């Protein structure tokens, strides 16, 4: 629709325009998530105003990050699912199943006699297996994701209760508690895991063929299929990834609470979906942002922290949470509209 025809391209112009990493971050990361960053800054200001040093203290910041870590890791997996226009309601239940499976008495005895590493491995394996089952049903069985994962949500939670006999299992494997529950250079290990998973998730979504196909399937599944992409297999893998992240979240929560319980991760799926969606990932698929998801998770845990510091009830928190979801999505929408015009 341009009035003037662009000048004929010179060979030399076909050079990739240089974009330094810093400029890229400013460009894509900050600009696209401006609303979220603003919200986080405002929240922090609110925290300092209401709770002063109790909020700005470095120990408190670590508390916020520790709170954010489990939801964060699970949200990274969910970002992929939502990017392909799917939904995973079962992550909380899968987390519980993975946690009780990894903390059975016999399992702990085995880990004690061999290596603590078998506990997180078990949790990840169980999580991934449950995710794979979701994926197979959705991709090959053509059951819609909402129903499949709703079924998994009930079944996994029930199985977790059967295995644990509804009892909370204390973790006695010291190696595990020290390794995952400890700190490196003053930073809790679970926070480090969150950072690692977030970075890996960003690279996977934005810098690999896997990520590209994820966007393609979310944006136009028919076009992806006709272009020869293995849509079904990829879909199954994405749900497996979400399950794996729930498994990782499971052993992180095990370390944080030093227990395994069938009640772990109750209601987690809604927190996860909220974080992903306010992070700018479209429920209709095709667009997803790991950076946005991380910001979304941080906003919610900062909010919880501020309310706790001010001795406000959980009920008030819930109201504020609902308001924030709506406001954030409204802002995102406005920004998206403005952006699509530039």
């Amino acid at each position, binding site marked *: *629709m*341009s009035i003037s025809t662009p000048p004929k*391209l010179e060979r030399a112009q*076909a050079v990739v325009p240089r974009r330094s990493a810093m400029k890229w971050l400013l460009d894509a990361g900050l600009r696209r998530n401006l609303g979220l960053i603003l919200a986080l800054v405002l929240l922090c200001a609110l925290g300092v105003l209401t709770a002063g040093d109790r909020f700005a203290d470095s120990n408190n910041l670590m508390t916020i990050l520790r709170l954010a870590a489990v939801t964060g890791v699970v949200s990274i997996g969910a970002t992929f699912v939502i990017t392909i226009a799917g939904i995973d309601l079962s992550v909380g239940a899968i987390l519980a199943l993975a946690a009780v499976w990894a903390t059975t008495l016999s399992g702990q005895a085995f880990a004690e006699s061999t290596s603590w590493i078998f506990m997180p491995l078990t949790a990840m394996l169980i999580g991934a297996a449950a995710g794979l089952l979701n994926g197979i049903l959705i991709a090959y069985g053509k059951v819609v994701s909402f129903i499949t994962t709703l079924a998994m949500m009930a079944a996994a939670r029930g199985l977790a209760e059967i295995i644990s006999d509804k009892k909370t299992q204390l973790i006695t494997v010291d190696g595990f508690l020290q390794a995952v529950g400890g700190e490196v250079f003053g930073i809790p290990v679970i926070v480090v895991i969150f950072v690692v998973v977030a970075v890996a998730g960003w690279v996977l979504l934005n810098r690999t063929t896997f990520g590209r196909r994820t966007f393609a399937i979310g944006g136009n599944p028919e076009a992806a299929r006709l*272009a020869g992409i293995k849509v079904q297999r990829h879909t199954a893998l994405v749900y497996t990834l979400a399950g794996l992240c729930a498994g990782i979240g499971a052993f992180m929560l095990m370390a944080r609470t030093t227990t395994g319980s069938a009640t772990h991760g109750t209601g987690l799926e809604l927190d996860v979906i909220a974080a992903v969606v306010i992070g700018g990932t479209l429920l209709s698929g095709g667009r997803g942002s790991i950076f946005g998801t991380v910001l979304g998770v941080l906003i919610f845990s900062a909010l919880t922290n501020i309310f706790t510091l001010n001795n406000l009830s959980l009920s008030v928190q819930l109201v504020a949470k609902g308001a924030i979801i709506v406001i954030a999505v409204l802002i995102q929408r406005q920004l998206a509209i403005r952006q699509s015009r530039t």
Partner: protein
Amino acid sequence: MTGLAGSHPALLQMRGIEKRFPGIIALHQVTFDVAPGEVHCLLGQNGAGKSTLIKVLAGVHQPNAGRIVFDGQDVDFSSPDDAIKAGIGTMYQELDLVESLTVAENIFLGHEQTRGGFSSRKSEQSKARELLARLGHPEISPDMEVGELSAAGQQIVSMARALSREVKLIIMDEPSAVLDSEEVANLFDTVRTLTANGVAVIYISHRLEEIRMIGDRITVLKDGTAAASNLLVSETPNAELIRYMTGRTISSIFPPVRSLDERTPPVLEVKDLVIAPGHQPISFSVRAGEILGLAGLVGSGRSEILGAVYGSTKAVSGSVAVDGKKIRSGSTVAAVNAGMGLCPEERKSQALLLDDTLIANFTLPSIGRFATAGFTDGAREYRASMEQIEKLELRPADPRREARTLSGGNQQKIVLGRWLSHGCRVLLLDEPTRGVDVGARSEIYQLVSELAGSGIAIIVVSSELEEVLGLCHQVLVVSEQRIVHRAPAGELSEHQILDLVMEGSTL
């Protein structure tokens, strides 16, 4: 040929219309008049601003400057609803129907017939039936789901919807694109009835012969400005119109058909392919460098043949082989791995990632090649995309632009470029020039010819017989899911093909 300018006060006057999108001036000082009861044709290449102009008129876009006088009053439509209430009905090119609703529900969407607050299904149905009968399509039942209708049927519903309100002006954006000749004749009858009752029609089409049949006056847009206004159809030769549209003269838009070596072995071999239970088996082959045309009407089974060859639908029996190797049936993955590529009929819904960049669209099937151990190489992707953009003369030449923002012709080039950069042995083109303007058409023909010259086997499915005859070596005529005739393109005429298609006779 009714009411021309001068004899009537104008129904619509658009003066100095200006519409800017960021970075683009879509309309610049456009003046456009429509008289009551006339058919005013709007011509122009893709991207000339036709769609923007009618969207301004329909209240979808608001102009940055300019004045619109409709039915003697200054109007300022802030939404499509305003325009509809003023008496302007629009049939969009991209059908805007809700597929899961019935025909009647679609027709009365937004102005449901109610009685005491409850929707009145009965009166909607009888009115819908009346409208459809008036349009010459009494066979479309008001309680059918729109999704079950063919594209042509949906077009009729869209028109019935426009007519279901009091309209003084109807905008038709390429209404004939999905219609066969009989349906076009029906459409024209309807248009004539409308104009006889004083309703004005703005008619957009790429087909000059249609404009000759139905139009009174023509306005030609080029690059967002009116290149010529109010030309009388009866006094303006085609050559002049093409000159206004392109700024150049086109003698022949088809490149010469390249000669084929008869000894070249076939690349694609289709043997006894049964597409659906009860259908006759189909066999044909395409040699390297050969362009095979599938001619026939919409719904005759051409696209279904293409789909079964490509594996997007699973065939009942039979085999498809590329370079002698059989391909697993019903797998697009196997087809692409074997060297096939498909440019599907519905670019937007079947081929493009509209919200993604040109780069992502180009590299969709071949992303693995731009990656090392699964990690993509953005710089290489960019260079390869830039290469395709240059080769295809794609505009605007910005690989990071979203595919959505490009015109139809350029979007088609993206899909072609995708398979060019992937490297294909067999290319399947389903309606490659649908919704593509004259200028870009000849570029696409040239491209297809060059691709064949480089040794690719090509199948072209097209509703435009001229295209099949002008571009292809060999033609298969398809009617009612069967191949009814096969002959070299040089031995066939449009007339013959039409006869074959209509009769469905076996020769």
